[in-house]
């Protein structure tokens, strides 16, 4: 990468962080880990249930304290199949990703769908599959993938 004719040096900007889940995120990930359920926050002012949950409403700026359980079943709204990995290298097994919407929730979740790409279609019903209890850490990856119902 370093040119012969012109001086160029490789360098990096190493930066490490601890990311804080926050009040809403903490409850969301805790519910996934302990109870295998998705929880959203409800805005009575706007009659909107946010998934993922937030502490405040982006429309009216109310503080949100009401929690609602979201069903573990949803519908595929958009699909893509990644044939390359995060660095652009060809994947041995393509990764099917979908935006899944849930009845009664505004928002949704993007995650891997554990099906051959040709079997996934818009509108299909899928279910959230969680990691086994002992392996869950209270993170987004406690959701393993979506599977067909």
């Amino acid at each position, binding site marked *: 990468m370093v040119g012969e004719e012109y001086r160029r040096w490789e360098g990096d900007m190493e930066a490490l962080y601890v990311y804080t889940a926050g009040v809403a995120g903490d409850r969301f990930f805790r519910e996934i880990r302990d109870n295998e359920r998705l929880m959203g926050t409800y805005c009575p002012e706007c009659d909107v249930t946010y998934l993922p949950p*937030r502490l405040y409403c982006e429309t009216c700026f109310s503080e949100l304290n009401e929690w609602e359980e979201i069903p573990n079943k949803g519908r595929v709204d*958009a699909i*893509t*199949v990644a044939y390359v990995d995060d660095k652009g290298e060809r994947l041995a097994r393509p990764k099917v990703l979908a935006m899944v919407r849930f009845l009664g929730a*505004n928002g949704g979740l*993007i995650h891997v769908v554990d099906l051959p*790409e040709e079997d996934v279609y818009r509108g299909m019903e899928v279910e959230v599959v969680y990691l086994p209890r002992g392996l869950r850490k209270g993170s987004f990856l406690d959701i393993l993938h979506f599977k067909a119902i």
Partner: protein
Amino acid sequence: MVGIGYEGFPRETPHYSFKELTFEAALKAYEDAGVDPRKDVDSFVVCEEDYWAGWSISDEGAPDQLGGVLRPLHTVSGDGLNGVANAFMQIKTGYFDVVVVEAHSKASDILTYEGILTFAFDPLFYRLLNAHPHFLAGLEMDAFLEDHENTEEDCAEVVRKNRENARHHEAASFGGQTSVQEVMDSEVLFRPLKAAEISPLADGSIVLVLASAEKARELTDQPIWIRGIGWSSDSPWLETRSLAEARYARWAADQAYRMAGLERPRRRVHVAEVDDRFAYKELQHLEALGLAGGNRAGALLREGFYEMKGDLPANPSGGSLGVGNLLEASGLFRVMEIVRQLRGQAGEHQVEGATLGVAQSWRGIPTATGGVAVLEA
């Protein structure tokens, strides 16, 4: 708008630092406007982002290459068209007569482009998916094609058109003859998005000089007027924004058209430069800008409506697909190109008789932020 200058747009510029790229563009813009930055410019706006520069707090390094040392300068961490909006507002206060806007891409210095985009996703959610950031473009394109009356072939057609147009742009790096079939046959990376539909990166700097109406008439016989400008963002959360529709562009256009008093834009606008960093984005943006008779951008494209010789040439410059993805300078490139068209200085890609044009920007994956400017000769 009284001055434009650019340095670019090759795949790489190993002989220039990013500051020198800016210096070269600035010299041209100041000569074009007939201004001395050390005496005549009241304020500078630089659009840049630390991670693209590979340099923390990089705004501290912005003034000298523009002639802006010890002068008012602020940066906008966003696309160049937002910088134009900032400059426009400064001039409207009445305290500033001449304001300079700059944005650049030194993409060839970035060795981990995908990594920087990945860092723009929520660290507690989708960054953990360990997926290439363009997966979001794949999802958007899928939703767009499902909801709107366009096809994968229409998106491929955009690539063909823009690469063809870029053959006539003096500084484009990716002009050429590409058939729709070649695009359709290119590697599928994020289905339905294909390799040929992703604009390649290029280097360059763009500098624009804006002035108040009174000052503009003093400086030039041929000022280009900003009749309207607006910018907007859809929800910051991927889950609550529209994947299928570019609502940010529609809302920004609503503002800009209202300011310009522009109704029925599809019939009145002579030329448009819109964001085409991914081929589907051009169609999505034309529809959001009201330049497609609803959701009919693909059909109009097939009829030749957006070709160089069509009723409303879209991206006669070749856009990002033909010229290259200029990162935060992408929107500024589109404004500059409209200025060239309205001045009649677009050379081989001149749209005959253009007096009213629209430039539109998008900040790129994973944002839903964009701006629109209506310009008139």
